[in-house]
């Protein structure tokens, strides 16, 4: 029996100024059309009636009393479950510019309450550190003008592809060719790969929109872009389509959807681009997928081979693998064999101080087709905030160290390293990617950037939106509710994918042309890099410039 009059102010009670986003509503502009409250993914706003007391305080008259005025406005809720996430969908649908979320410039207090019911904060997005990162600060400072053939990014033709897969040493290659030995498969691909985002983490319209864009890039634009499935499997029709060659199939500790993949093998029209074995992820090292029940729709359940509406946490490790050697022996070999040793197989690991050990093991493994290292700034659809913000290793020095290790062994042209994690975090996708390539990566994986650029993700590194994990994505990118994901037009996603890759392609040329490179990607061309940070320059072994 709580008295109607009582308003409890508890430890978790918050006011508007405690919230990360404050709704500014202009009553003078509002037409009360209801579109903002209808679209809000968090039910954070509602039509509020407020009553104002207007006392009549005429000291000379006997007639006294109070009058009341009632007024309406759109207000936000202050409980943790319904706090505004700043997505701005309200602003987008408002016909009168009457409403918008404004970032709270004060230190907001919800940070202290993301632990209701003892559950630490989980979210989507990436590490909440904004501002220029190290990659943004790298300059391409060796400009060939009259010292080398002048190249014109607009007119000259460039070969922008990179090799995915194991390249044999020349003498070994010739020997095997002569003797009819196995030549490991390779692919010439665009060095910016759409990183693993699962069918499940992404909505059907987002995932298929990306694939449609990838197909367009390959078949219409001639840009050989490939994308990785993530661990949610791949729709059977796609497995049996000619587009499979643009797809890197991922196998991860959840093993979702692999029954359909194996079932499709005899009917595949072509081989997949590669097989990625996920051992770790930059956004949440030590954690696997965290697909929760509200995203496990009938369709996702069907594709993953699980019941509808169950939680699908993937274990952080492959349950039967206990060492690098075992992983390499069992999984890489099995995956290679599954596709007749005609498909490159490579592992994906979280960037870590132990990355070199993994790499060296792969160097000795004849079936390993590369290594993908994913840094701390990588994005994800669902992770514990603590994993995202504090766990992991930045990508630049990790890749650099691994590359130099290969150089020391003379193996840098044999096993490609791919880099991921925060590439394009601030929009400088080509610059970031090319910097990593020149530090030694053969190519980069971009996931979150593609979500932002191609599907219209609203998230940022200042806690905006980032509700990918709970299936309420207001753009329909990471929701499995058709009422949300149908907001996303796959054709428009595909168009954006093609625009993104056309643009990256041009920008890559704009970087390569002044270096005097047009026919091979400047992998490891670190003599053309400079940074105005002495420590970083020393650590990366590049030029300090100022």
């Amino acid at each position: 029996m709580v008295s109607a009059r009582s308003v409890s102010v508890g430890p978790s009670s918050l006011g508007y100024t405690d919230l990360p986003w404050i709704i500014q509503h202009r009553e003078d502009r509002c037409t009360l059309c209801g579109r903002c409250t209808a679209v809000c993914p968090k039910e954070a706003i509602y039509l509020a009636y407020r009553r104002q007391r207007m006392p009549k305080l005429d000291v000379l008259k006997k007639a006294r009393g109070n009058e009341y005025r009632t007024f309406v406005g759109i207000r936000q809720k202050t409980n943790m479950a319904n706090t505004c996430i700043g997505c701005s969908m309200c602003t987008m649908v408002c016909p009168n510019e009457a409403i918008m979320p404004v970032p709270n410039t004060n230190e907001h207090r919800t940070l202290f309450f993301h632990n209701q019911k003892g559950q630490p904060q989980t979210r989507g997005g990436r590490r909440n550190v904004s501002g220029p990162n190290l990659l943004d600060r790298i300059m391409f400072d060796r400009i060939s003008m009259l010292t080398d053939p002048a190249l014109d990014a607009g007119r000259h033709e460039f070969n922008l592809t990179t090799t995915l897969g194991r390249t044999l040493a020349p003498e070994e290659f010739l020997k095997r060719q002569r003797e009819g030995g196995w030549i490991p498969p390779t692919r010439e691909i665009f060095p910016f790969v759409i990183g693993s985002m699962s069918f499940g983490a992404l909505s059907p319209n987002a995932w298929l929109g990306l694939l449609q864009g990838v197909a367009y890039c390959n078949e219409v634009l001639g840009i050989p872009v490939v994308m990785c499935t993530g661990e949610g499997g791949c729709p059977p029709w796609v497995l049996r389509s000619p587009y499979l060659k643009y797809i890197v199939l991922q196998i991860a500790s959840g093993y979702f959807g692999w029954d359909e993949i194996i079932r499709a093998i005899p009917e595949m029209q072509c081989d997949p681009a590669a097989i990625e074995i996920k051992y770790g992820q930059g956004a949440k090292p030590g954690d696997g997928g965290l697909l929760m029940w509200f995203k496990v729709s009938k369709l996702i359940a069907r594709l993953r081979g699980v019941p509808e509406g169950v939680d699908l946490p993937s274990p952080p490790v492959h349950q039967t693998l206990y060492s690098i050697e075992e992983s390499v022996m069992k999984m890489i070999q099995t995956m290679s064999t599954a596709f007749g040793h005609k498909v490159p197989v490579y592992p994906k690991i979280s960037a870590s101080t132990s990355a070199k050990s993994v790499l060296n093991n792969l160097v000795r493994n004849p079936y390993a087709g590369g290594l993908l290292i994913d840094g701390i700034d990588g994005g994800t659809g669902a992770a514990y905030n603590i994993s995202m913000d504090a766990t992991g290793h930045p990508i630049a020095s990790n890749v650099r160290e691994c590359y130099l290790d290969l150089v020391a062994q003379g193996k840098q042209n044999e096993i490609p390293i791919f880099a991921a994690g925060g590439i394009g975090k601030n929009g400088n996708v080509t610059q970031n990617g090319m910097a990593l390539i020149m530090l030694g990566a053969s190519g980069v994986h971009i996931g979150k950037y593609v979500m932002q650029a191609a599907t219209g993700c609203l998230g940022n590194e200042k806690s905006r939106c980032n509700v990918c994990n709970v299936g309420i994505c207001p753009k329909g990118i990471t929701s499995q509710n058709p009422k949300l994901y149908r907001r996303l037009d796959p054709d428009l996603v595909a168009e954006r994918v093609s625009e993104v890759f056309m643009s990256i392609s041009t920008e890559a040329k704009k970087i390569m042309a002044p270096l005097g490179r047009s026919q091979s990607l400047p992998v490891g061309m670190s003599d053309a890099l400079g940074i105005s940070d002495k420590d970083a320059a020393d650590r990366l072994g590049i030029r300090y410039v100022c």
Partner: protein
Amino acid sequence: MSTIVVKGLDENGHRISSMVFENLVRDAADKTNHLSLETFGQHNIGIRLHRADGLTIETSGPAGQRLGCMGMPGTSIICHGSASDDVGYLNIGAEITVLGDATNGVCSAMANGKVYIRGSIGARGLTMTKWNPDYQRPELWVLGSTGDSFAEFNCGGIAVVCGIDAKNPANILGYRPCVGMVGGTIYFRGQIDGSHPKTNARLDRPTDEQWQWLMEGMGKYLEKIGRTDLMATLSVRDEWQMLLTITPQERALMFSGPMPMAEFRNKHWNKAFGGGDPLRDIAPGLDRSPIEAVPTGDLRRKKPFWANRESAAPCTYYCPVHIPTVDRLRLIREGKIDEAYEMLLRYTPLPASVCGAVCPNLCMENCSRSGVDESIDVQLLGRAVANVPAPTMAAPIGKKVAIIGGGPAGMNAAWQLAQAGVEAHIFEQDKQIGGKLAQVIPWERLSKAVWDQEIKRFLDTSNIHVHLSVDMNKEKFKELQSNFDYVVVAVGTHEPRRIPFPGNERVIPALHFLKNAKSSIPDKIGKEVVIIGAGNVGCDVACEAYRLGAEKVTLVDIQKPLAFGKEKEAAEALGATFRWPVMTREVTDQGLVMDTGELIPAQTVIISIGDVPSLKFLPETVETVTVGGAAWIKTQDSHLTTNAKVLAVGDVEKPGLATNALGAGKTAAEFIIADFNGVQWKPFTQHPITQQALTITHYVPDEHIRIHTEQAQAESCLSCASCRDCHLCETICPTGAITRRELEYGHTNGYESGLDGSWEYTSDNKKCIACGFCADTCPCGIWMMRTF
């Protein structure tokens, strides 16, 4: 003027340098307007040469680079043979005719003038041309074909490429023409490879005007190069195509890919999956087509439900009898006072005594109106019914129920059964009915006049038979079981609890004290009284003690006193004090000795720590549960005991308020009646409406609520969870989706309570966008946004 010949070789047969040759040519041009140059690879022939009367330069012999470079208007250069690179470089008006092929870079950066080529040209022709609109456009006419990278960054030049004896007939414009082209037009006749960037140039056919221009120019061109024989061949309009510049304005409107995405989807994408959606096998019928962000119909994530009377008003919910005060007040608002009274009486036989007096009024405690100003005065409403006659009872249906105990629980069981036509027999141990209400509640708190009135109304009711002074025992119970359809045990608790501390025999149980206090022979008490147990009964004891002459009453307890409300206020008003924690060591003739040794002086010590049931008459089939050292009858929600024909209600289950007893009696009767009617009994399962669901800001604090009339109370009711037909939802709905319609009489929407009129509000799915404004606006909390 005569022709001057300038030779490229000196008398010794050595090549004259370009610098010297240029001086010779310049000198010659000063003297005449017709030069014949026998070149030997000298560069920049014709550079900056100009005569007001025009100048014609004919060259023969090997041509150097940049023939006609920076040519001026009025100058005409004819090269008898093939030319080297960059013919017409930076030309601003000269007419240059090459009667052979030209190599790379023809017309590079040319801004005006014409270049006529009788053969084909090399790579990078027509690049970087300009066009100053104050002058004519530059033109390039080629009889054969062009090399690669033709017309890069072309800005104003017009090219005509005729495709006669092309170097590569399969591709007469070379690889990747028009890169970066921002202006100009290319007419061509023959095949091309389509490698031009689709964002720079587009294919088209000449318009009539363009065709006319082409044919006029063609005549002159063929004459210049001496191939008028080709006129007919080159006049087949269908063979001519054009590459036109795409303007930045046009480009801004284009999707930058060369193929519209819809076309790609239809021609390639769908085909790759056997001609359909790639998910059709694992998700048959899945519609993924795009929708807008604020949809109507089934695409909404939630929709409004008019959940009228689905929840309970707090008054109804918190009242143990679930008296729908909210409906009662609506009847009063509708002017149906008699119906309102009758409704209340159908819920309880003791509205004035309980609702109006002894009940702590849980309904009022939870009343939503208190969020505006103060709660509805339910006591007033209860008292108003004191003198109202009983409602009509149904004709007997031939069923009989025995009720043991005539307290509030038993009375309401009988009252409800009687209304349904069941013969209800009350067997009461005492000489009067009413239980503890009659026996122990001081008359100060329960007016005797009101009580007598309500008891009289009860006793006068048909179908109710009261048997007083009946001692119950096992045999008698068995007899009742065989003579009646059901037996309801409602004997309450009449065995005082005691504590065996030394001197406990000196202590008077509260139950006895209060019973005697209400009789004609009250107990004699001292000036100082200590009451062990400071609950509400203890407070009643204190009041009665003061009435009977006590001067100082102390209530002690081992814990914080549980007393609250009217009883506590009354005791404190008389001067009673509370002490706790107090552990009793013993009671002596001096008073109560605490375990600390302290004495609280008292001539009279009364113990008020509750009473327990006395259940010796019960058969073994009725199980009990032992709590706190006493046995209580075990019951289900329906108050059915372990014996399917025996029910138990009131304090015998667990101690409670008089209103709990009334509620239990009603529920038990409903169970029995349902059984007699052969229907499934349904418990009260409504949830209370939440404060948040209501919009109480529509109401303003009202001084009139302080005028305690039934009408004022009725006007102040917020009508929680029950639509008050205010039309606010209809008004606020931004899409006009909500309409009200009158329902035919008899349509039950909760109007079983006898309310007038029946209506409902509906929301049109085709119009509703699920903004939730109806739910946010509804003062009564009827509209609910729910997923569907």
